[in-house]
């Protein structure tokens, strides 16, 4: 199934090929972004709008003794000061999280992490609101914080969630997958067993635009309009209806342009609820925009898995089984956004791209005095952690067997004829030809030549490393029978209307945060009905104007909503065919479709275009029997399975032996995401994800001190990579369509973020081979690389 035209992308390819359908074209949304004319939440200005600021806890764990707001209320520009006690009176002090836990909107009893919301002020302007926060006097009774997840379950650890009835420890949940006994049996007979502790530290999505909203409750018609930084406007609307008691049809959620999301804008944050409450109470529009520190300290983090991996193999390198024990740090409230039956997300794909005899995972999740979340940062529902684990442990095996890591992978891949392949943890991989993709990446890299260069350099005492990683993703949640969030099935609607003049509007349930939906979805529809993308308006991010669906995260837009867009276009085309048969006075069976028009079989001159048909559908004159006027359709797509994109990544690093600085010299990324709709957009997604991955591997971490102070509260403390830390990306592709997706497409949004951290770390560890290093944990800052070179690599937590 894999096509043979796999080739490295020529960077001088024309990016504006003006396709009527799939192909390279410039993004329709870019003219407004490039000119600074995007309209973001903070650009919303409404008459009489007030501003909200949140008072946050300076400490990680404390009982609230008292909150005195008298002075703040006396500030001349302040309109309201609201505390947890005030919200409790309205029954709004707590809200559900996306994982069926509860989270405090404003703290009533205790604060449970530094940065937690304690009270808010609404004032005439943003400055006054912030000034008044300093006039609120909170008396805290400090409690011992629980910071290290490893000690969270010890008997003497303070109980963080004493709000939960009968809670006597910090246990959050247990989860397991695979077959423990079968795995043990395979391990017992294996020639080689390699065990490795691996930490994926807490990181933060840090979108350029922080989170915020404008809540506008109209008292007369009882309607709430909420402009908000949301990747999932429909899901958010339903949750607001359930929490606030406002009827769902009286809530309109609008997600305007978003300055990045990366999962950070999936959860509902207390600030949104505070703004809604403020607008309900005051009858005025209220804006809340968090600042950078608030975003980094309080909103959805990612990762924070302390893993122990074990791999069993024969002595000649046949991998038999993998098992893992994971300690998951979920922070103070379980705010993970994952389908409810998957508390560890899709971590079950930790078996990777390999054909195993057995696998088993046991996970324990705990509460700690840290910010909640566990959703985000392009993680594909925890596949990032799973891929990192398997790709590191496979490299550890290669180290012990003294085998080439690429050769070891090639030996163990699931073979093309095994698809659809059911993994030992129950995931059904749809399609793949892993060896072809792997070999292409090796060819592009000049793998053998790189190994020769490395050998020469090692002989001279220079440190050069080559890291290989191969990942398989599982993206596009549902199907709805297995996957829901808070009872909402993970399916997506799509509506297409063709106007009389042959222009069209397509309405989506998903929401772009930079992925280019306004272009990609126009191209998907264009491919099916032959209307140029420029003539197709894409509407999204407004619950009053789009069909219901679960939103954009977990790389699900193209696999789910993209399928919906293709199928709704085919539905319209089917109707167009009937109308065309009337226009051409032939039977439907005698018509042939070439993109954009129907013609009579054998007579290409006897044809009508889709534009002709659109006018006829809306115009005067009869339509064929039983056909209503208009040319539009709506569907809801429930995916049959996830799609499984994959890729082979090779990273080359040089390390300065004197300073331990790492330079990523080259990065070769070959991705297979099935059918490629707009290759330019795919490359952009890959470039961004690779940069993310280099950032996580080299510098990113949300760290805490012993008191629970967050040490990553600004972009001076929490580093994200720049163009200077990354090489000129070398991207390539193979095409193995998804068999169940209507156009064969798979997701691509998170592939590079998932696949690149192990490639970078594997390269660094490979470079450090002369020091006898088998593993070193991220983030591999110069200091931590130097620690490894001294023979004592240290875990980051």
């Amino acid at each position: 199934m894999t096509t043979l035209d796999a080739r490295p992308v020529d960077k001088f390819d024309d990016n504006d090929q003006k396709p009527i359908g799939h192909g390279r074209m410039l993004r329709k949304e870019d003219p407004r972004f490039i000119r600074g004319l995007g309209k973001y939440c903070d650009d919303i200005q409404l008459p009489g709008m007030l501003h909200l600021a949140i008072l946050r806890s300076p400490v990680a764990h404390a009982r609230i003794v008292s909150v005195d707001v008298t002075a703040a209320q006396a500030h001349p520009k302040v309109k309201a000061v609201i505390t947890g006690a005030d919200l409790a009176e309205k029954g709004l002090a707590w809200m559900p999280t996306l994982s069926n836990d509860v989270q405090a909107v404003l703290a009533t009893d205790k604060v449970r992490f530094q940065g937690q919301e304690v009270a808010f002020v609404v004032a005439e302007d943003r400055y006054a609101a912030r000034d008044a926060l300093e006039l609120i006097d909170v008396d805290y009774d400090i409690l011992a914080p629980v910071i290290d997840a490893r000690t969270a379950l010890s008997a003497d650890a303070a109980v963080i969630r004493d709000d939960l009835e009968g809670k006597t420890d910090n246990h959050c949940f247990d989860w397991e997958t695979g077959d423990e006994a079968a795995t043990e049996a395979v391990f017992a007979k294996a020639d080689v067993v390699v065990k490795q502790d691996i930490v994926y530290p807490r990181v933060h999505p840090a979108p350029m635009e922080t989170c915020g909203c404008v809540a506008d409750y109209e008292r007369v018609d009882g309607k709430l309009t909420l402009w908000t930084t949301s990747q999932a406007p429909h899901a958010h609307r339903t949750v607001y209806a359930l929490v606030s008691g406002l009827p769902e049809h009286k809530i309109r959620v609008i997600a305007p342009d978003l300055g990045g999301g990366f999962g950070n804008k999936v959860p509902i944050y207390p600030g949104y609820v505070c703004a809604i409450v403020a607008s309900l109470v005051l009858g005025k529009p209220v804006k809340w925009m968090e600042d950078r520190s608030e975003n980094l300290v309080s909103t959805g983090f990612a990762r924070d898995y302390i893993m122990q991996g074990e791999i069993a193999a024969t002595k000649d390198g046949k991998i038999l089984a993998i098992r893992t024990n994971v300690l998951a740090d979920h922070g103070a409230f379980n705010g993970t956004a994952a389908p409810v039956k998957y508390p560890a997300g899709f971590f079950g794909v930790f078996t990777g791209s390999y054909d195993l005899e057995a696998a088993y995972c046991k996970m324990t999740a705990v509460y700690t005095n840290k910010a909640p979340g566990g959703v985000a940062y392009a993680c594909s529902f925890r596949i990032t952690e799973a891929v990192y684990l398997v790709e590191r442990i496979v490299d550890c095996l290669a180290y012990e067997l003294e085998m080439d890591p690429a050769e070891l992978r090639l030996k163990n891949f699931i073979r093309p004829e095994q698809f659809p392949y059911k993994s030992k943890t129950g995931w059904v991989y749809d399609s793949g030809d892993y060896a072809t993709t792997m070999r292409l990446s090796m060819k592009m890299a000049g793998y053998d030549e790189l190994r020769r260069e490395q050998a020469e350099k090692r002989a001279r005492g220079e440190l050069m490393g080559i890291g290989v990683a191969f990942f398989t993703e599982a993206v596009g949640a549902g199907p709805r029978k297995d996957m829901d969030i808070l009872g909402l099935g993970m399916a997506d609607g799509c509506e297409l209307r063709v106007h009389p003049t042959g222009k069209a509007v397509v309405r989506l349930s998903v929401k772009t945060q930079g992925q280019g939906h306004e272009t990609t979805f126009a191209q998907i529809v264009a491919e099916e009905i032959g209307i140029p993308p420029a003539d197709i308006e894409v509407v999204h991010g407004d619950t009053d104007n789009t069909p219901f669906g679960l939103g954009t995260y977990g790389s699900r837009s193209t696999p789910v909503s993209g399928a919906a867009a293709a199928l709704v276009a085919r539905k319209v085309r089917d109707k167009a065919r009937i109308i065309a048969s009337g226009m051409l006075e032939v039977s439907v069976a005698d018509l042939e479709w070439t993109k954009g028009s129907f013609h009579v079989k054998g007579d290409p001159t006897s044809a009508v275009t889709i534009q002709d048909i659109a006018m006829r559908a809306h115009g005067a004159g009869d339509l064929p029997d039983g056909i209503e006027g208009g040319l539009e359709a709506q569907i809801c797509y429930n995916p049959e399975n996830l799609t499984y994109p994959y890729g082979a990544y090779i990273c080359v690093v040089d390390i300065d032996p004197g300073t331990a600085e790492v330079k990523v010299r080259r990065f070769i990324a070959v991705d297979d995401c099935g059918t490629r709709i707009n290759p330019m957009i795919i490359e952009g997604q890959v470039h961004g994800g690779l940069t993310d991955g280099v950032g996580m591997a080299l510098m990113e971490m949300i760290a805490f001190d012993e008191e629970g102070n967050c040490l990553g509260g600004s972009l001076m403390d929490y580093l994200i990579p720049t163009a200077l830390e990354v090489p000129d990306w070398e991207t390539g592709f193979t095409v193995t369509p998804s068999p169940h997706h209507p156009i064969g497409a798979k997701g691509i949004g998170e592939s590079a973020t998932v696949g690149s951290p192990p490639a970078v770390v594997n390269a660094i560890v490979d470079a450090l081979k002369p020091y006898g290093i088998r593993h070193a944990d991220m983030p591999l800052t110069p200091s931590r690389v130097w620690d490894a070179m001294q023979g004592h690599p240290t875990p980051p937590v």
Partner: protein
Amino acid sequence: MQVPAPFEYERATSVDQAIGLLERLGSTARLVAGGHSLLPMMKLRLANFEYLIDINDLHGELGYVTVEPGQVRVGALTRHRELLESAELAEAFPIFRDAEKVIADPVVRNRGTIGGSLCQADPSEDLSAVCTTLDASCVIRGPSGERVVTMDEFYRGPYETAVGEDEILIEIRLPIRPGGSSAYHKVERRAGDWAVVSAGAAVWLEDGVISDARVGLAAVGPNTTGIPAISEALRGSPPSEDLYRRAGEIAAASCDPVTDMRGSAEYKRHLADELTQRALRTAVDRINSGPRSLEES
């Protein structure tokens, strides 16, 4: 958006008028030049001043690099970008260009000034290490006139300088001595980050023998002054790898780093050693290969 507490703002029209304002307003006022340290601190409300006196209009008066026989005079309001681009400065002191290339990013360099950098007195600040290495002196003007202090005298400790509440740093003077060159090496976690550690070195040769040498370190403790023991160890010997190693050992032993997010104290001490050696080596190589090699190095 982070927003500061209320403050009053005035644009200074001359150095003397600014000094007059400072004299009147005392500790409630602060000068703002590039603002890249002050404004973030105000937005985070770590610093709250009632008055800001903006001296950016004085760039004509205080923004210059003047090379004279025996010294270079640099106006306190000279921007990083101007220091980076000054060929005369790079010729006299290549260390400046080395350092400016790795200070922050172009946005900061377009605004930030040498005077602001020195007065911020951050122990990790690059130009402080550069000026220490070059044995600079600072001209401070107040209501009662001007005074000139050495870098040793200028630094009172982290974030503290000899500049009084009613005074302004107006000029930095860098002595030129023949037969010398200089270099700066920095390790950072990411472009634009503060130094994990950095080292500057200036070396003067006479007949193949080191007549004088100075090393300045950043981010390894509160003391940003030079290390006299290194100068003593180097003087009178021809440059050699053994000598650099000796200097590196002294650097590592003389500093007082702390473990933080940028690295462990042990690693920083190692870097003080390694970067001191590298800076000395580069400076000597530059003397030996002449000014032509500057652009290439």
